[in-house]
């Protein structure tokens, strides 16, 4: 589903609730020693929106996610989730506030079963502490039952219910990615950050994932920010895209505008030689993999 209405920059009406901003990041910066990883990053994700974050390898995309979720503390700028300031807070606090994520290099609880992975995340919405747990009070019992019930439903939606007792680490790759999403959804987030959800998948799996991601908004009322390298996917489903390179935002706007933006093309392909074939117009190119310059998959030592 492409974004309705094309303006060069700024947000579109699309199907998102443009009135409510679910996640508001303003002028985030982070430097590691002398290296500026992220410079002046801003983003306003509306409730129910589906936004994309793209850029070449090492551009700093996952670092942005880490800044948003509290893994790193920004040097400057701040982040608001549904109006509440969350920058500088611990990741667990931010998860409780309603923002969940998946990881670029899958981080499941390998030895635990599939359903226990989900149940663990669901625990963030419980109120019983250690004493209630040890004494098995009615509240605790009710919460545990509710957790199991909801976890099973999540497994059904993500189509991995048949594997619920298996160890997470023994799952096939595609199912592991689904499990990561299910686990993030178990925390009942208002904002979901997906870090390369279709990396390493074949065309069929990607198609399924695409449908799944789009349906998440309606089913769970969640706003989504997506990091991906698959340009076809990003252009198709995102309402708005931010492009960063070396930590700097180089373009922002509707997919069509991004495709035509020379700065974006240059970042991905470099400046074209005069002699060689001219860069094909994005319209003419089939909707396939991103035209990156021979980059290896981003599971390498660098950051996305």
């Amino acid at each position, binding site marked *: 589903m492409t974004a309705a209405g094309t303006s060069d920059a700024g947000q579109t009406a699309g199907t998102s609730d443009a009135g409510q901003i679910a996640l508001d990041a303003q002028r985030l910066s982070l430097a590691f020693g002398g290296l500026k990883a992220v410079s002046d990053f801003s983003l306003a994700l509306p409730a129910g929106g589906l936004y994309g974050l793209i850029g070449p390898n090492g551009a700093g995309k996952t670092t942005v996610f880490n800044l948003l979720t509290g893994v790193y503390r920004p040097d400057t700028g701040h982040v608001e989730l549904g109006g509440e300031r969350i920058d500088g807070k611990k990741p667990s606090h931010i998860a409780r506030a309603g923002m969940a994520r998946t990881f670029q290099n899958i981080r499941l609880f390998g030895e635990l079963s599939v359903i226990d992975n989900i149940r663990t995340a669901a625990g963030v919405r419980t109120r019983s502490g250690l004493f209630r747990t*040890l004494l098995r009070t009615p509240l605790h019992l009710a919460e545990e039952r509710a957790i199991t019930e909801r976890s099973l439903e999540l497994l059904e939606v993500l189509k991995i219910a048949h594997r619920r007792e298996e160890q997470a680490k023994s799952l096939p790759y595609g199912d592991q990615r689904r499990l990561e999403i299910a686990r993030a959804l178990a925390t009942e987030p208002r904002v979901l950050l997906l870090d390369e959800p279709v990396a390493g998948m074949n065309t069929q799996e990607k198609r399924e994932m695409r449908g799944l991601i789009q349906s998440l908004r309606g089913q769970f009322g969640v706003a989504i920010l997506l990091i991906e390298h698959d340009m076809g996917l990003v252009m198709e489903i995102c309402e708005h895209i931010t492009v960063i390179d070396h930590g700097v935002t180089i373009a922002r706007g509707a997919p069509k505008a991004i495709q035509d933006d020379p700065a974006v093309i240059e970042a991905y392909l470099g400046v074209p030689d005069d002699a060689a074939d001219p860069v094909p117009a994005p319209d003419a190119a089939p909707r396939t993999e991103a035209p990156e310059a021979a980059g290896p998959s981003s599971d390498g030592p660098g950051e996305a």
Partner: protein
Amino acid sequence: MKSLQERVAALRPSLPAALGRSALPFLIAIGLAYLIDAAIGPAIGATWRKILLDVGIAILLAGSLNIVNGYAGQFSLGHAGFMLVGGYTAAWLTFYGGIHWFGVKGTYGGFLGAGQLLFLGSCVLGGLVAAGFGALVGLPSLRLRGDYLAIVTLGFGEILNRLVQITDRQPKRVEDVQGRSLFELANNLGGAESFSQIPGYTTLFFVYVFAFVLLVFAYRLKYSSRGRGLLAVRENEIAAEAMGVDTTRAKVVAFVFSAFWGGVGGALYAHQISTLSPGELSFQKSIDIVLIVVIGGMGSITGVVLGAAILVILPELAREFADYRMIVYALALVVVMILRPQGIMGVRELWDTSPWRRLVQRLRGGQP
């Protein structure tokens, strides 16, 4: 999809039902402990009684360490320190308190009489003081991983050991004790010599009541959100934090809870052997306890029980080889780590294994 709290109201069991379910295991525990003390104990002779007692205390110590090392995956080598704290605290209360309030140095009163109640109180007090130290030890754990945490916890254990060694000597005559208040006597823990003549209150009953209660708690913890949070910290701390598990809190709580029961174990130990000396409760003891957890399976309750039983009973069976016991243990540790690092059970329980499941299925009449 409905949120969690929306469902909770509908799924709430009634209070009487929940109360019954909650209390039942404890009643069974007390019953079993009484059975062991009254029926099994007298039937097996003095040697085996002692072994049974030792197994019970080992279960208590290893089971509590399992919470930190097994569930939370934090490698603590300082558990003997909690034993030390709990043991000395309890001994202080029963020895000096006994003289103050009962006027005698040995045990006093009958079953659940004043003396035994004082003893129970001392166990709980020992646990609480140990729990306090557990918080102290847990705090550095927040920023340390693996090897370093092990060394720091070892260091803590040694510090506690040293601290006991600089206390004053223990006045043993009734007159000497009665003239001074309990608080004054808090510094008279025997120093580098031993603290002796601790009343021998420890019986099979008390040991197994505490041990079973701990096992029930360990079970309930493991199959709950809190417990899964700990296991998540062990599996992948960064992901756990991202999924809303307050890893700081989880780790400190694990240490505190574990330390409490370690202290109780120490208190029971003190009142069994009657003489506490700091040299005995040093890192060697910590390593003995770690051995049980590692071989039984880090994170497994049944594993810990098995490990405790094996590592206490085996040396008794092979008395002639007592000299070589430690050498065998040492080799066993190395071999286990190379060939089967998850120990006997790994993180699974007996009821998770396939043979058990097949048995249960067959008993239920289903097809395998």
